[in-house]
């Protein structure tokens, strides 16, 4: 925002190479240092806010005892069991909505209602229906993910360019070939954006569902440590979940760059 001709110190700082990274880094380090000082010296009760040193120790303990790994595996399994079918069902539903006006008119309002409602409100019901075990978590994940994937697939397909379809038709392509070779690849970037949205919703969904009621998983651990009033462990677990989310989104972006390198221009 160089409105004034003369450059202030701030302007010059913010225009340095990699300014975003190192100013952000410094800011985080300062925050962590202040937190450490306040927590470790009990300026504020450390059982309420913990502090980085304690959190690091807790992370080490949780990881080395194998407790974290085992529970993370449970959560990951539930997540995968819900998310994989959600991708398939979401794309098929989205295709159906895009290609059939009747299907769209009949069911899109139901879908939009599902999308706007807070998903977490369904969890108690899902537990009644599917039990306290893994199934209800997988179903929660599925429901959280399927809607944005379907909605984005519909959008993507409806934005398919007529010229792609025309080119294939001219070579005598069948309806199936047109869907597989023109419509789906053309919609891929928008479907990918839907997957990103879905991942965020699904992660929060699976964790909250485990926190609500479960026998194992990261959400269960959060619940256990919170009743025990252990702030440090909660920070570790929250960090782990966020890290997983970041990793998923990062992987998805890599995948997107491979699947849709042509989009770089658009």
């Amino acid at each position, binding site marked *: 925002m160089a409105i004034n001709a003369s450059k202030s110190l701030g302007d010059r700082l913010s225009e340095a190479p990699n300014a975003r990274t190192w100013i952000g880094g410094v800011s985080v380090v300062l925050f962590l240092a202040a937190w450490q000082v306040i927590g470790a010296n009990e300026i504020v009760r450390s059982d309420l806010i913990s502090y980085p040193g304690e959190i690091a120790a807790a992370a080490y303990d949780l990881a080395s005892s194998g407790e974290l790994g085992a529970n993370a595996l449970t959560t990951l399994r539930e997540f995968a069991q819900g998310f994989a079918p959600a991708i398939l069902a979401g794309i098929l539903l989205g295709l159906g909505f895009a290609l059939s006006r009747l299907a769209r008119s009949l069911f899109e309002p139901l879908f939009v209602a599902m999308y706007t409602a807070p998903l977490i409100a369904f969890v108690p019901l899902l537990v009644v229906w599917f039990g306290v075990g893994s199934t209800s978590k997988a179903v929660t994940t599925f429901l959280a993910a399927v809607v944005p994937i379907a909605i984005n697939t519909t959008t993507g397909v409806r934005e398919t360019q007529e*010229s792609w379809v*025309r*080119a294939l038709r001219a*070579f*005598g392509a069948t309806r199936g070939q047109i869907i597989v070779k023109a419509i789906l*690849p053309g919609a891929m970037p928008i479907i990918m954006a839907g997957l990103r949205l879905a991942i965020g919703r699904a992660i929060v969904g699976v964790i909250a569902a485990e926190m609500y009621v479960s026998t194992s998983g990261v959400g269960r651990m959060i619940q256990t440590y919170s009743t025990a009033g252990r702030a440090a462990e909660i920070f570790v677990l929250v960090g782990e979940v966020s890290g997983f989310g970041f990793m998923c989104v990062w992987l998805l972006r890599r995948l997107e760059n491979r*699947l849709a390198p*042509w989009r*770089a221009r658009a």
Partner: protein
Amino acid sequence: MTQLVVENLRLEYPAARGGKPYLALSEANLAVESGEFVTIVGPSGCGKSTLLMLIASLLRATNGTVKLNGKEVAAPGPDRALVFQDFALLPWRTVLKNVEIGLELQRVPVARRRDIARKYIEMVGLSAFEMHYPHQLSGGMRQRVGIARALSVDPEVLLMDEPFGALDAQIRQVMGLELLHIWERDRKTILFVTHDIDEAIYLADRIVVMSASPGRVIREIKVELPRPRGLAIRTSPEFNIYRETLWNLLEEQVRASGSWAAAKATGDR
């Protein structure tokens, strides 16, 4: 040998709510010899692209038939390959994969279709760009991909719908020259729609002139310029005679369509 016959082809769009039916093409007749290069010119909106789409079966005619080698055609197929004005390449496919698409749709095995695609990519001079994506190419290069794609399925007839219309004047001339080189090598039957008079003369064995809307064929002109033709031929006196003839024909049509449009606007038609 007569290869492609168009008989009494007519396309009428049904009336939109509260409007009149629209006649896009009225009784088009045309016979094309095997190996002939035919260009179609006419004022814009005369239905010359429509005619091409009907021959390709991308549009369905209200009346009339299209026969290829004596057999009536009903569905789009690789026997009539199209080259589009907007290129219509698939942006997520490389040049190679774009050229392969026609063969891929016919389930030609990978290795074979790759060989064929490479041959035609080489023919249009893009061997160095096989792995590029369409957005990395210039307009002229993109249309070369479009031409290679159409040739790769070894069509009976090549249908070209203002293929150089989106390119600037110089590239257009070069592309025309290259197209002639390719055509002289394998003598495909070509139907080439354009609104550029020079292009129509320069390329053609025969020029089909269409009337203003509703379109029909009003004149056919044989072009008896020697082949192979170079760019220099455009400045020859013979070329000029063709140019003048065509220009006069088309001017009449444009005037006719202009007065028609004016009459329509004032509502006294």
